Each structure stands twice: as C-alpha cells, then as structure tokens.
C-alpha cells in the first residue's frame, strides 16, 4: 500500500485502473477531464490493459458503455454536469438493462448560465433513473468507492449501474494524501466480472425487446427489488472492504450525534467542514452533531431515521434544488419520517449551489436557525437559503 498526494480526478482514475476495466469510453468535460487523460496515459504506458473509446459525445459515451457491458465487459467512464444531462436517456437504459457500469462524476452545476463549479444538481437530477449513487467526502473515498461500486454493482443480486460523485474542484482539482491499495488485494476483493447473461453468439439472446403491458410492470418490479437489495449488499461490501483495506464506510456516518439536539445531514465534501464546525460548536457547548450520507440511492431512509430520530431538529443540507419543491434529500428524509413514532423537526437548507463555498459559519447559522425552530416548536420556512447576497437579487 502506498500513500501519495493526488487530485480527486486522479484518485477516481486510479481507482478505476485498479478495478481492471475492459472498456473505458469517455468524453472530456470540465472538471472530470483528468480521468480520460489519465486512463489514456495508463494505457499508453502499458500499466492498463483496456480499450478506450474516445467518443464524440457523452450520449455516445454511455451508449458505448452499454454495448460493452452487455457483452460482459467491465466498463467505466467519467463525466459531469451537462455531460451527465446529455447521457440521461442512456442512463435509464443502462439501469433498465441491468448493466453494472460505474461512472465517476465531478459533481458540477448545470447551465444556463455556464458554471463549472460544484453542486450536486447533475446527479441528483438523475435520481429517478435507477442508478446507485455514491458521494465522496474526500479523494480517498473517491478512489475506494470506485472499487466498492464495482463490487456492489456486479453482485448477482444487484446488477445495476452506479455513479461515484466527487465534488467539482473541491475534490476533483484538490491534492490530498491518498492510500493506494495494492493491486493484488484489489484483485482478491474484486475478481474478474463474470456475468451470467451477456451477448454471446454461442447462446444468442435478445436484450431489451418490446415489453408489452402484460410484462413491463414486472420488469420494473424486479429492478426495484434489485436496488432495494443493493442496500444490503452495500453493507456487506463495506464490511468486506474494511476487513481487506482497513477503511470503514457506512451508508450514513454519524459524528457526535448521540446527545445532539441538532443533527446536520450532509453529502459530499462539505461533510468534512461540517465536522470541523461541529467541533467548534461543541467547544462552545452547543449540542450539535452531523451525519454524512455516502449512499443516496438506494435511499437509506431507515438508517437515517435510526441515527437521527432522537434529535430535536434534523437540518437537511441540499447542494441541489428541485425548483418548486425544495431540496431532493430533504423531501425524502421528511417523507421517511412521517409515519415514524418519533418526530424531530426537519428543516431544509439549500447551500453551495454553483460553487458557493460552504463555510464553518454557514453551519453555525444553520444551528442557530434550527435552535430557533426548537424554541418556536415549529418550522416556519421549511426551505431556507443560506447567505443570499441580497444585493444581486
């Protein structure tokens, strides 16, 4: 095992390389471009034995992934923002075809106007397509989650694709120390992909043909059951990963939550800052904790309830917005709690869109607002925006 300092993009590329993919179709887009660059380099240097398809668009990138995966190859790609949006149609198909493709994403805001910085809108907008979704807090997680994602996705009980999100610039372009697992250990952890069903001239089969109303619903039922099952498989794979590599992952990781009045729920890189903020506030005697969500699909609703139900307020932070509703994560957390016996107040903060930096003081403001809700006994504005610059409104 070697510890080196690398960018987030390089971490996901290295993670991909360790998984020995057979085919890597990719198209450049800021901030994920380093991924195809690195893969090109690995292949040129003989460090990696894979076919790289330098496609002409992201729609084709995902289409090529689908073709290769349907033939039984291990496949990965990388994209972001507009690229993800352009491949959206094919993401439905990858999931519906039950193909375990893994995609590294540099989570970036969507146009218009053009904005290359971080938010989660690109992948959150694909929440209904049937992909598993992982979000990394740091580069180490970016690398590890690539390996974990393949193992989960290729599990016979799952057979679905996954995204591994790393925040634009905050991770993609930031150098951090990363422990690179030994290839041998990864090989043991993630053996060669051997699907039972694939396009094969010796056993000709048709994939994705017409599904009349007589059968269609059962396809979608099976797909739903598979992504629900993934929840269990993820736990197993996390445990196995810890045993093999020593690093622990959870779908949702609590920090100082046991006695917390306020629990802040986060995804992605801001989770680290949240912990720093919690430490600062704890020193000031504030009973606050935070929870980091690593898995967003399948939605770990029950786990969230278990870890946060004793708080007085759950502050759900969304680095995305479903306009006309609120944050996506918030909606799903609140929905999960409704028929539970415990009813903490749930507030929603839209934060960090388009690369607005998420600061320690933002968490302090969120804490204050949450405590205010406790005092009033109710949530006045379920969806709040942090630090709006009133001058430009």
């Amino acid at each position, binding site marked *: 095992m070697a510890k080196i*300092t690398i960018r987030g993009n390089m971490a996901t590329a290295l993670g991909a390389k360790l998984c020995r993919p057979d085919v890597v179709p990719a198209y450049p887009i800021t901030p994920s471009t380093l991924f195809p660059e690195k893969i090109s380099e690995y292949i040129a240097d003989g460090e990696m034995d894979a076919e790289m398809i330098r496609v002409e668009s992201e729609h084709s990138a995902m289409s090529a992934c689908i073709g290769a995966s349907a033939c039984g190859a291990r496949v990965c790609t990388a994209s972001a923002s507009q690229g993800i949006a352009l491949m959206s149609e094919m993401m439905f198909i990858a999931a519906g075809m039950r193909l375990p493709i893994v995609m590294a994403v540099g989570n970036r805001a969507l146009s218009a106007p053009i904005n290359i910085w971080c938010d989660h809108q690109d992948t959150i907008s694909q929440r209904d397509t049937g992909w598993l979704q992982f979000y990394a807090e740091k580069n180490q997680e970016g690398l590890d989650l690539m390996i974990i994602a393949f193992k989960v996705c290729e599990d016979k009980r799952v057979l679905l694709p996954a995204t591994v999100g790393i*925040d634009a610039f*905050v991770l993609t372009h930031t*150098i*951090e120390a990363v422990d690179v697992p030994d290839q041998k250990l990864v090989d043991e952890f993630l053996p060669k992909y051997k699907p039972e069903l694939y396009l094969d001239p010796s056993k000709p089969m048709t994939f994705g043909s017409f599904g009349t109303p007589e059968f269609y619903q059962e396809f979608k039922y099976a797909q739903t059951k598979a992504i629900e099952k993934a929840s269990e498989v993820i736990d197993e794979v996390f445990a196995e990963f810890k045993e093999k590599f020593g690093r622990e992952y959870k779908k949702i990781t609590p920090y100082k939550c046991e006695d917390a009045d306020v629990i802040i729920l986060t995804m992605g890189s801001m989770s*680290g*800052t949240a912990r720093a903020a919690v430490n600062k506030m704890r020193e000031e005697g504030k009973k606050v904790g935070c929870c980091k969500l690593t898995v967003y699909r399948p939605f770990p609703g029950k786990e969230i309830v278990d870890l946060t139900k004793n708080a007085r307020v759950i502050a759900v932070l969304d680095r995305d917005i479903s306009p006309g509703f609120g944050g996506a994560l918030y909606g799903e957390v609140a929905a999960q709690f409704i028929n539970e016996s415990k009813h903490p107040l749930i507030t929603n903060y839209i934060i960090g869109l388009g690369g607005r930096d998420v600061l320690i003081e933002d968490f302090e403001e969120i804490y204050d607002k949450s405590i205010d809700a406790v005092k009033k006994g109710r949530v006045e504005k379920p969806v709040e925006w942090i630090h709006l610059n009133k001058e430009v409104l």
Partner: protein
Amino acid sequence: MEKEMYEVRFHGRGGQGAVTAATILADAAFREGKDVQAFPIFGVERRGAPVAAFMRMDTKPIDLKTQIYEPDSIVVLDPTLLDVIDVTKGLKEGGKIIINSSKKASEFKFGKAKVYTIDATKIAVKHGLGTKTNPIVNTAILGAYSKAVGNVSIEAIEEAIGEKVPRKKEENKKAAREAYEVTRGE
C-alpha cells in the same frame, strides 16, 4: 485551541506553475508526516492571466473543505502582479510574504507582514527552466519558502520535486536548493 493548521496562498500567472508549486509544497509537507491539501483557485485558467493556488497543512487530519481566506503566508511568483491585485488580502497578522524579485526585501512594505525576496527568475534561467521570456520559477521560489517559513524542509521539497515535476527534475532541485541558500528577509 492551539492552531496547528498552516495555510499558504500562491499568486502567479497562468503557465508559470503556481498550481504546481502548491502541489509540490503539499507533497513535501506530506512527506514530513503532515496531512495536506493543495488546490487551484476554482476558476478558468488562461495563459498569462493572474491565477492563485492554495496549500493547507496540519499535523492532524484535515476535515475542512473550504477555500482559504486568511492565509498564514503568501508566495508571489510574478512581481508584476503587485500592481494588479492586492496580494496581501486576508494575510494573517505577522504573516510572511515571499516575492520573486531582484529587489531587496526592504524595498517592499506590506504593513506588519514580513517580506522575503528571491530572484527566482534569474535562478530559473540559470538552470534552464523555461525560456528567458517565460521562465518556470515555481521550484526556485519553493526553496525560498522553505528558508523563509521553515515549516517544510528543503530536503522534503527536493523529494517532492522528484515526484511531481515531469521534466528536468535535477535542474529543478538545484534551483530550489540555490534559492534556499540565498534567501534573505528584510
């Protein structure tokens, strides 16, 4: 709380290697057991345009993912930037500024900040780094940083150069060492 985290901001122009400088410094500090982060200003880089890069190190694991607003020291790769932007913005009281300049440190005045100068351009040209019109000064100025700030050793910087610089590794190491030897404060 005793502050162990140390933050540095680099100013340069696109193509001069400010981002690489931050990367090398982070890697060097990492070699000495620190946890590190290095990142560019989250913008769009164009050759010749002012750019900034950042480095954060700590003896403890770093949780923080914010940008750096109040650096402990500042490194200026291109003296012409001094007329264009306020390079001292947010600098902590008693912070240090390392400037690539042929002038003496005493010729600069930035409040209470302690100034160090190094003619990194001359050193870079001497070691054949970049061209005369476009010298790559990032390794030389890191030697100066090591001397001026003292929290990352010149040996670690040399090692990091060996790892992170794609070409002319030895020349770059020599440039850093030479700068380290000659750097003087005001």
